[in-house]
Protein backbone atom coordinates (compact mmCIF):
# COMPACT_ATOMS: atom_id res chain seq x y z
CA UNK A 1 0.00 0.00 0.00
CA UNK A 2 2.82 2.32 0.98
CA UNK A 3 4.55 1.49 -2.34
CA UNK A 4 1.46 2.54 -4.32
CA UNK A 5 1.13 5.78 -2.36
CA UNK A 6 4.72 6.63 -3.21
CA UNK A 7 4.13 5.87 -6.91
CA UNK A 8 0.98 8.03 -6.98
CA UNK A 9 2.94 10.84 -5.34
CA UNK A 10 5.70 10.71 -7.98
CA UNK A 11 3.26 10.45 -10.89
CA UNK A 12 1.32 13.47 -9.60
CA UNK A 13 4.45 15.54 -9.13
CA UNK A 14 5.68 14.47 -12.58
CA UNK A 15 2.45 15.43 -14.29
CA UNK A 16 2.44 18.75 -12.46
CA UNK A 17 6.00 19.54 -13.61
CA UNK A 18 5.20 18.57 -17.21
CA UNK A 19 2.13 20.79 -17.09
CA UNK A 20 4.07 23.75 -15.70
CA UNK A 21 6.85 23.39 -18.25
CA UNK A 22 4.34 23.22 -21.10
CA UNK A 23 2.65 26.33 -19.78
CA UNK A 24 5.82 28.39 -19.60
CA UNK A 25 7.42 27.22 -22.82
CA UNK A 26 4.60 28.37 -25.05
CA UNK A 27 3.05 24.99 -25.65
CA UNK A 28 0.68 24.45 -28.56
CA UNK A 29 -2.22 24.53 -26.14
CA UNK A 30 -1.34 28.06 -25.15
CA UNK A 31 -1.27 29.40 -28.68
CA UNK A 32 -4.19 27.50 -30.19
CA UNK A 33 -6.97 29.86 -29.07
CA UNK A 34 -5.17 32.81 -30.70
CA UNK A 35 -4.45 30.82 -33.84
CA UNK A 36 -8.00 29.51 -34.13
CA UNK A 37 -9.64 32.86 -33.34
CA UNK A 38 -7.58 34.94 -35.77
CA UNK A 39 -7.59 32.50 -38.70
CA UNK A 40 -11.28 31.70 -38.38
CA UNK A 41 -12.09 35.42 -38.13
CA UNK A 42 -10.20 36.14 -41.38
CA UNK A 43 -11.69 33.18 -43.20
CA UNK A 44 -15.24 34.01 -42.15
CA UNK A 45 -15.37 37.82 -42.04
CA UNK A 46 -12.68 38.77 -44.60
CA UNK A 47 -12.88 35.99 -47.18
CA UNK A 48 -16.61 35.36 -46.54
CA UNK A 49 -16.30 31.61 -46.63
CA UNK A 50 -18.87 29.43 -44.86
CA UNK A 51 -18.47 28.29 -41.24
CA UNK A 52 -17.98 24.70 -42.35
CA UNK A 53 -15.34 25.67 -44.88
CA UNK A 54 -13.46 27.80 -42.36
CA UNK A 55 -13.56 25.10 -39.71
CA UNK A 56 -12.25 22.56 -42.23
CA UNK A 57 -9.62 24.69 -44.01
CA UNK A 58 -8.22 27.28 -41.63
CA UNK A 59 -6.09 25.23 -39.27
CA UNK A 60 -3.12 22.96 -39.80
CA UNK A 61 -3.73 21.25 -36.47
CA UNK A 62 -7.06 20.59 -34.86
CA UNK A 63 -7.44 20.02 -31.15
CA UNK A 64 -10.54 20.33 -28.99
CA UNK A 65 -11.26 23.66 -27.31
CA UNK A 66 -13.44 24.52 -24.32
CA UNK A 67 -15.46 27.02 -26.32
CA UNK A 68 -15.60 28.48 -29.82
CA UNK A 69 -17.98 31.42 -30.10
CA UNK A 70 -18.91 33.31 -33.26
CA UNK A 71 -20.49 36.69 -32.58
CA UNK A 72 -22.10 37.66 -35.87
CA UNK A 73 -23.25 41.04 -34.63
CA UNK A 74 -19.94 42.17 -33.17
CA UNK A 75 -18.02 40.33 -35.89
CA UNK A 76 -15.72 38.67 -33.41
CA UNK A 77 -14.49 35.16 -32.63
CA UNK A 78 -13.76 34.00 -29.09
CA UNK A 79 -11.90 30.76 -28.47
CA UNK A 80 -10.91 29.32 -25.10
CA UNK A 81 -9.10 26.32 -23.76
CA UNK A 82 -7.72 25.54 -20.32
CA UNK A 83 -4.75 27.84 -20.79
CA UNK A 84 -6.01 30.87 -22.63
CA UNK A 85 -8.97 32.78 -24.02
CA UNK A 86 -8.42 34.68 -27.26
CA UNK A 87 -10.59 37.11 -29.17
CA UNK A 88 -10.19 38.14 -32.79
CA UNK A 89 -12.14 41.20 -33.87
CA UNK A 90 -13.04 42.20 -37.43
CA UNK A 91 -12.20 45.90 -37.86
CA UNK A 92 -13.10 46.94 -41.37
CA UNK A 93 -13.01 45.88 -45.00
CA UNK A 94 -9.57 47.47 -45.27
CA UNK A 95 -7.96 46.16 -42.10
CA UNK A 96 -9.63 42.78 -41.64
CA UNK A 97 -9.24 40.96 -38.32
CA UNK A 98 -6.95 41.63 -35.39
CA UNK A 99 -6.21 39.55 -32.34
CA UNK A 100 -7.21 41.70 -29.39
CA UNK A 101 -6.71 39.29 -26.53
Amino acid at each position, binding site marked *: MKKYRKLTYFVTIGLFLIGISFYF*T*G*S*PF*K*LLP*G*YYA*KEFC*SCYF*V*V*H*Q*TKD*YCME*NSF*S*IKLPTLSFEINEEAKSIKVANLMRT*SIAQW*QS*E*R*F*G*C*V*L*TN
Partner: protein
Amino acid sequence: MWEVSAFSKEKEHISCPLPDQAWQEASPESQGISASNLEKFANFLYSENRKTDGLVIIRNNCLIYERYGRGYNRNMKHVGWSITKSISSALLGILEGEKIVNRYTKVKDLLPYFDKKEHSNLNLLQLIQMRSGIKWIESYSNFITSNAINMLYTEGFEDVARYTASLGMIDKPGKKFQYVSGATNVLMSALNKAVKKSEQENFPWIYLFEKIGMQSVTWERDKSGAFIGATGIFAIPRDYARFGLLYLNNGNWNNQQIIPKSWIELSTRLPNDTPNNRSYGLGWWLNQPIENGSKKEIPWKLGPPNMYAARGYMGQYIIIVPDMNMVVVRTGTEFNQTTKIEEIIPYILELEKP
Protein backbone atom coordinates in the same frame (compact mmCIF):
# COMPACT_ATOMS: atom_id res chain seq x y z
CA MET B 1 -18.62 23.49 -58.69
CA TRP B 2 -16.06 25.22 -60.96
CA GLU B 3 -16.22 28.71 -62.33
CA VAL B 4 -14.16 28.68 -65.51
CA SER B 5 -13.58 31.35 -68.13
CA ALA B 6 -11.35 30.95 -71.17
CA PHE B 7 -12.34 34.10 -72.96
CA SER B 8 -14.14 34.05 -76.28
CA LYS B 9 -12.55 35.11 -79.52
CA GLU B 10 -14.96 38.02 -79.93
CA LYS B 11 -12.64 40.56 -78.32
CA GLU B 12 -9.34 39.76 -79.95
CA HIS B 13 -6.37 42.08 -79.52
CA ILE B 14 -2.66 41.77 -80.06
CA SER B 15 -2.05 43.23 -76.64
CA CYS B 16 -4.20 45.02 -74.12
CA PRO B 17 -3.89 48.30 -72.24
CA LEU B 18 -3.06 48.00 -68.56
CA PRO B 19 -6.31 47.66 -66.65
CA ASP B 20 -7.11 51.02 -65.08
CA GLN B 21 -10.50 49.69 -64.04
CA ALA B 22 -11.76 46.51 -65.70
CA TRP B 23 -9.48 43.92 -67.24
CA GLN B 24 -9.53 43.52 -70.95
CA GLU B 25 -10.25 39.90 -71.74
CA ALA B 26 -8.86 38.06 -74.74
CA SER B 27 -8.92 34.54 -76.06
CA PRO B 28 -5.77 32.47 -75.40
CA GLU B 29 -5.33 31.93 -79.15
CA SER B 30 -5.35 35.67 -79.87
CA GLN B 31 -2.34 35.96 -77.58
CA GLY B 32 -0.51 33.01 -79.10
CA ILE B 33 -1.46 30.57 -76.35
CA SER B 34 -2.71 27.06 -76.95
CA ALA B 35 -6.16 26.69 -75.41
CA SER B 36 -5.75 22.93 -75.05
CA ASN B 37 -2.38 23.28 -73.29
CA LEU B 38 -3.94 25.91 -71.07
CA GLU B 39 -6.66 23.47 -70.15
CA LYS B 40 -4.05 20.80 -69.38
CA PHE B 41 -2.27 23.25 -67.11
CA ALA B 42 -5.48 24.15 -65.28
CA ASN B 43 -6.50 20.51 -64.97
CA PHE B 44 -3.11 19.74 -63.43
CA LEU B 45 -3.57 22.45 -60.81
CA TYR B 46 -7.16 21.38 -60.15
CA SER B 47 -6.42 17.67 -59.88
CA GLU B 48 -7.69 15.98 -56.76
CA ASN B 49 -4.72 16.23 -54.40
CA ARG B 50 -3.91 19.85 -55.30
CA LYS B 51 -6.14 22.20 -53.41
CA THR B 52 -6.20 25.03 -55.93
CA ASP B 53 -8.67 27.81 -55.16
CA GLY B 54 -7.93 30.24 -57.99
CA LEU B 55 -5.96 30.51 -61.21
CA VAL B 56 -5.56 33.72 -63.23
CA ILE B 57 -3.36 34.01 -66.30
CA ILE B 58 -2.33 37.29 -67.93
CA ARG B 59 -0.57 37.51 -71.28
CA ASN B 60 0.37 40.77 -73.04
CA ASN B 61 -1.61 42.58 -70.30
CA CYS B 62 -4.78 40.69 -71.30
CA LEU B 63 -6.74 38.40 -69.00
CA ILE B 64 -6.75 35.17 -70.98
CA TYR B 65 -7.89 32.63 -68.41
CA GLU B 66 -9.31 32.29 -64.94
CA ARG B 67 -10.74 29.47 -62.95
CA TYR B 68 -12.01 29.17 -59.40
CA GLY B 69 -13.03 26.26 -57.25
CA ARG B 70 -13.41 24.83 -53.75
CA GLY B 71 -15.96 27.45 -52.73
CA TYR B 72 -14.15 30.44 -54.23
CA ASN B 73 -15.23 32.78 -57.02
CA ARG B 74 -13.61 35.76 -58.73
CA ASN B 75 -14.99 38.23 -56.20
CA MET B 76 -13.65 36.44 -53.12
CA LYS B 77 -10.41 37.50 -51.51
CA HIS B 78 -7.73 34.96 -50.79
CA VAL B 79 -5.07 35.10 -48.12
CA GLY B 80 -1.68 35.85 -49.65
CA TRP B 81 0.56 34.83 -46.74
CA SER B 82 4.16 35.65 -47.77
CA ILE B 83 3.12 37.22 -51.05
CA THR B 84 2.78 40.14 -48.65
CA LYS B 85 6.59 40.35 -48.41
CA SER B 86 6.84 41.20 -52.12
CA ILE B 87 4.29 43.98 -51.60
CA SER B 88 6.19 45.32 -48.57
CA SER B 89 9.30 45.37 -50.75
CA ALA B 90 7.45 47.40 -53.40
CA LEU B 91 6.44 49.93 -50.76
CA LEU B 92 10.03 50.37 -49.62
CA GLY B 93 11.03 51.03 -53.22
CA ILE B 94 8.17 53.48 -53.73
CA LEU B 95 8.90 55.40 -50.53
CA GLU B 96 12.56 55.57 -51.44
CA GLY B 97 11.56 56.96 -54.82
CA GLU B 98 9.43 59.54 -53.01
CA LYS B 99 12.47 60.38 -50.83
CA ILE B 100 10.57 59.49 -47.67
CA VAL B 101 13.10 56.83 -46.65
CA ASN B 102 16.35 55.47 -47.98
CA ARG B 103 17.17 51.78 -48.23
CA TYR B 104 20.10 52.44 -45.90
CA THR B 105 17.95 54.16 -43.28
CA LYS B 106 18.79 52.63 -39.92
CA VAL B 107 15.95 50.75 -38.27
CA LYS B 108 16.77 52.34 -34.89
CA ASP B 109 16.15 55.79 -36.39
CA LEU B 110 12.52 54.89 -37.04
CA LEU B 111 11.92 52.34 -34.29
CA PRO B 112 13.89 53.53 -31.24
CA TYR B 113 13.34 50.26 -29.38
CA PHE B 114 15.95 48.67 -31.66
CA ASP B 115 18.36 50.15 -29.15
CA LYS B 116 20.86 47.37 -28.50
CA LYS B 117 24.41 47.81 -29.75
CA GLU B 118 24.00 44.78 -32.03
CA HIS B 119 21.07 46.52 -33.78
CA SER B 120 22.99 49.70 -34.51
CA ASN B 121 23.86 48.87 -38.15
CA LEU B 122 20.61 47.16 -39.12
CA ASN B 123 19.02 48.96 -42.09
CA LEU B 124 15.84 48.64 -44.16
CA LEU B 125 17.54 46.96 -47.11
CA GLN B 126 18.88 44.16 -44.92
CA LEU B 127 15.34 43.53 -43.62
CA ILE B 128 13.90 42.95 -47.09
CA GLN B 129 16.98 41.05 -48.30
CA MET B 130 16.51 38.58 -45.43
CA ARG B 131 19.94 39.42 -44.09
CA SER B 132 18.84 40.97 -40.84
CA GLY B 133 20.84 38.69 -38.54
CA ILE B 134 17.84 38.45 -36.22
CA LYS B 135 17.74 35.31 -34.10
CA TRP B 136 14.74 33.47 -35.47
CA ILE B 137 13.03 30.13 -36.11
CA GLU B 138 10.72 30.27 -39.14
CA SER B 139 8.19 27.46 -39.17
CA TYR B 140 4.45 27.08 -39.62
CA SER B 141 4.38 23.51 -38.39
CA ASN B 142 6.52 23.49 -35.25
CA PHE B 143 4.11 25.10 -32.85
CA ILE B 144 6.44 25.01 -29.87
CA THR B 145 9.60 26.75 -31.07
CA SER B 146 8.46 28.76 -34.10
CA ASN B 147 8.99 32.49 -33.71
CA ALA B 148 6.76 33.07 -36.74
CA ILE B 149 3.84 31.46 -34.93
CA ASN B 150 4.56 32.91 -31.51
CA MET B 151 4.83 36.36 -33.11
CA LEU B 152 1.37 36.12 -34.65
CA TYR B 153 -0.61 34.29 -31.98
CA THR B 154 1.02 34.49 -28.52
CA GLU B 155 3.93 36.59 -27.26
CA GLY B 156 4.12 38.88 -30.29
CA PHE B 157 0.58 39.56 -31.44
CA GLU B 158 0.25 42.96 -29.77
CA ASP B 159 3.30 44.43 -31.52
CA VAL B 160 5.03 42.14 -34.00
CA ALA B 161 8.02 44.44 -34.60
CA ARG B 162 8.71 44.94 -30.92
CA TYR B 163 8.52 41.16 -30.40
CA THR B 164 11.08 40.68 -33.20
CA ALA B 165 13.36 43.29 -31.63
CA SER B 166 13.23 41.42 -28.31
CA LEU B 167 14.75 38.27 -29.80
CA GLY B 168 18.23 39.64 -30.28
CA MET B 169 20.69 38.88 -33.05
CA ILE B 170 22.52 35.76 -34.15
CA ASP B 171 24.65 37.34 -36.93
CA LYS B 172 25.84 40.75 -37.92
CA PRO B 173 23.30 42.46 -40.22
CA GLY B 174 24.00 42.02 -43.93
CA LYS B 175 26.20 38.97 -43.57
CA LYS B 176 23.99 35.96 -44.09
CA PHE B 177 20.66 35.03 -45.69
CA GLN B 178 18.07 33.78 -43.24
CA TYR B 179 14.35 33.88 -43.95
CA VAL B 180 12.81 35.87 -41.09
CA SER B 181 9.17 36.89 -41.31
CA GLY B 182 9.68 39.16 -38.33
CA ALA B 183 12.12 41.25 -40.39
CA THR B 184 9.43 42.17 -42.94
CA ASN B 185 7.11 43.08 -40.09
CA VAL B 186 9.82 45.35 -38.72
CA LEU B 187 10.13 46.90 -42.17
CA MET B 188 6.42 47.74 -42.38
CA SER B 189 6.42 49.13 -38.82
CA ALA B 190 9.39 51.30 -39.79
CA LEU B 191 7.71 52.53 -42.98
CA ASN B 192 4.63 53.30 -40.95
CA LYS B 193 6.74 55.64 -38.80
CA ALA B 194 8.44 57.19 -41.82
CA VAL B 195 5.31 58.46 -43.59
CA LYS B 196 3.30 61.50 -42.57
CA LYS B 197 1.02 60.89 -39.61
CA SER B 198 -2.02 61.58 -41.77
CA GLU B 199 -0.92 58.79 -44.16
CA GLN B 200 0.01 56.17 -41.59
CA GLU B 201 -3.22 54.19 -41.75
CA ASN B 202 -3.49 54.19 -45.51
CA PHE B 203 -0.09 54.64 -47.10
CA PRO B 204 -0.12 51.28 -48.97
CA TRP B 205 -3.34 52.39 -50.69
CA ILE B 206 -2.13 55.95 -51.33
CA TYR B 207 1.21 54.94 -52.85
CA LEU B 208 0.36 51.62 -54.48
CA PHE B 209 -3.04 49.92 -54.45
CA GLU B 210 -5.17 52.85 -55.60
CA LYS B 211 -2.72 53.68 -58.38
CA ILE B 212 -3.01 50.28 -60.03
CA GLY B 213 -6.66 49.59 -59.25
CA MET B 214 -6.17 46.97 -56.54
CA GLN B 215 -9.54 47.68 -54.96
CA SER B 216 -10.04 44.48 -53.03
CA VAL B 217 -7.04 44.59 -50.70
CA THR B 218 -7.39 43.91 -47.00
CA TRP B 219 -4.15 44.30 -45.05
CA GLU B 220 -4.40 43.05 -41.50
CA ARG B 221 -2.54 44.74 -38.66
CA ASP B 222 -1.31 43.86 -35.21
CA LYS B 223 -2.90 45.24 -32.07
CA SER B 224 -0.55 48.26 -32.15
CA GLY B 225 -1.90 49.19 -35.60
CA ALA B 226 1.17 48.19 -37.64
CA PHE B 227 0.61 46.28 -40.87
CA ILE B 228 1.62 42.62 -40.77
CA GLY B 229 4.25 43.12 -43.46
CA ALA B 230 5.15 39.46 -43.77
CA THR B 231 1.78 37.77 -44.13
CA GLY B 232 -1.18 40.16 -43.68
CA ILE B 233 -2.56 40.63 -47.22
CA PHE B 234 -5.88 39.39 -48.61
CA ALA B 235 -7.01 40.20 -52.17
CA ILE B 236 -8.87 38.73 -55.11
CA PRO B 237 -6.56 36.84 -57.51
CA ARG B 238 -7.20 39.40 -60.24
CA ASP B 239 -5.68 42.05 -57.95
CA TYR B 240 -2.64 39.89 -57.23
CA ALA B 241 -2.31 39.75 -61.02
CA ARG B 242 -2.32 43.56 -61.19
CA PHE B 243 0.60 43.61 -58.77
CA GLY B 244 2.46 41.03 -60.86
CA LEU B 245 1.74 43.02 -64.00
CA LEU B 246 3.18 46.15 -62.42
CA TYR B 247 6.48 44.29 -61.95
CA LEU B 248 6.32 42.79 -65.43
CA ASN B 249 6.02 46.35 -66.73
CA ASN B 250 9.05 47.48 -64.74
CA GLY B 251 7.00 49.45 -62.23
CA ASN B 252 5.23 51.52 -64.86
CA TRP B 253 1.44 51.72 -65.03
CA ASN B 254 -0.05 53.56 -67.96
CA ASN B 255 2.88 55.99 -68.23
CA GLN B 256 3.13 56.58 -64.51
CA GLN B 257 6.24 55.19 -62.83
CA ILE B 258 4.79 53.75 -59.62
CA ILE B 259 7.87 51.82 -58.48
CA PRO B 260 11.30 53.07 -59.61
CA LYS B 261 12.63 50.87 -62.41
CA SER B 262 15.94 50.59 -60.58
CA TRP B 263 14.10 49.12 -57.59
CA ILE B 264 12.48 46.44 -59.76
CA GLU B 265 15.91 45.58 -61.20
CA LEU B 266 17.46 45.41 -57.75
CA SER B 267 14.56 43.31 -56.45
CA THR B 268 14.81 40.74 -59.19
CA ARG B 269 18.51 39.97 -59.19
CA LEU B 270 20.75 38.36 -56.62
CA PRO B 271 22.84 40.71 -54.53
CA ASN B 272 26.42 40.55 -55.75
CA ASP B 273 28.19 41.68 -52.60
CA THR B 274 27.82 38.45 -50.61
CA PRO B 275 26.77 35.05 -51.90
CA ASN B 276 23.25 33.96 -51.02
CA ASN B 277 22.45 30.37 -50.24
CA ARG B 278 18.93 30.97 -51.60
CA SER B 279 17.91 32.60 -54.85
CA TYR B 280 16.12 35.54 -53.26
CA GLY B 281 16.07 39.20 -54.25
CA LEU B 282 14.17 41.87 -52.38
CA GLY B 283 11.04 40.05 -51.28
CA TRP B 284 10.97 37.95 -54.46
CA TRP B 285 12.11 34.37 -55.19
CA LEU B 286 14.40 34.26 -58.20
CA ASN B 287 15.66 31.67 -60.66
CA GLN B 288 19.26 32.76 -60.65
CA PRO B 289 22.16 30.45 -59.88
CA ILE B 290 23.23 29.98 -56.31
CA GLU B 291 26.29 28.19 -55.03
CA ASN B 292 25.73 24.66 -53.85
CA GLY B 293 29.07 23.33 -52.69
CA SER B 294 31.47 23.58 -55.60
CA LYS B 295 28.80 23.99 -58.30
CA LYS B 296 26.17 26.57 -59.15
CA GLU B 297 22.53 25.57 -59.38
CA ILE B 298 19.36 27.30 -60.47
CA PRO B 299 16.29 26.55 -58.36
CA TRP B 300 13.71 25.97 -61.11
CA LYS B 301 15.82 24.09 -63.63
CA LEU B 302 13.43 24.21 -66.58
CA GLY B 303 12.48 27.85 -66.12
CA PRO B 304 14.11 30.87 -67.76
CA PRO B 305 16.67 32.52 -65.49
CA ASN B 306 14.87 35.87 -65.53
CA MET B 307 11.57 34.53 -64.19
CA TYR B 308 10.69 35.26 -60.57
CA ALA B 309 7.87 34.74 -58.12
CA ALA B 310 6.11 35.95 -55.02
CA ARG B 311 5.42 32.91 -52.87
CA GLY B 312 3.14 32.36 -49.92
CA TYR B 313 2.42 29.55 -47.47
CA MET B 314 -0.07 26.90 -48.61
CA GLY B 315 0.65 27.42 -52.30
CA GLN B 316 0.10 31.10 -53.10
CA TYR B 317 2.04 32.18 -56.17
CA ILE B 318 2.44 35.20 -58.40
CA ILE B 319 4.77 33.96 -61.13
CA ILE B 320 6.30 36.49 -63.53
CA VAL B 321 7.70 35.18 -66.83
CA PRO B 322 9.13 38.19 -68.72
CA ASP B 323 10.16 36.07 -71.75
CA MET B 324 6.51 35.15 -72.28
CA ASN B 325 5.11 38.53 -71.16
CA MET B 326 3.04 36.52 -68.70
CA VAL B 327 1.80 36.61 -65.11
CA VAL B 328 0.34 33.50 -63.48
CA VAL B 329 -1.51 33.77 -60.18
CA ARG B 330 -2.37 30.63 -58.30
CA THR B 331 -4.08 30.56 -54.89
CA GLY B 332 -4.49 27.42 -52.83
CA THR B 333 -4.99 25.82 -49.47
CA GLU B 334 -2.29 23.18 -49.20
CA PHE B 335 -1.02 22.77 -45.67
CA ASN B 336 1.60 20.33 -46.94
CA GLN B 337 2.67 22.64 -49.83
CA THR B 338 1.94 19.95 -52.43
CA THR B 339 2.32 22.07 -55.53
CA LYS B 340 5.81 23.41 -56.21
CA ILE B 341 6.78 26.06 -58.73
CA GLU B 342 9.12 23.61 -60.47
CA GLU B 343 6.09 21.41 -61.22
CA ILE B 344 4.18 24.35 -62.65
CA ILE B 345 6.93 25.62 -64.96
CA PRO B 346 6.75 22.85 -67.59
CA TYR B 347 3.04 23.56 -68.05
CA ILE B 348 3.71 27.28 -68.45
CA LEU B 349 6.43 26.64 -71.03
CA GLU B 350 4.04 24.42 -73.01
CA LEU B 351 1.49 27.21 -73.32
CA GLU B 352 3.19 28.81 -76.32
CA LYS B 353 3.44 25.50 -78.16
CA PRO B 354 0.65 24.35 -80.48
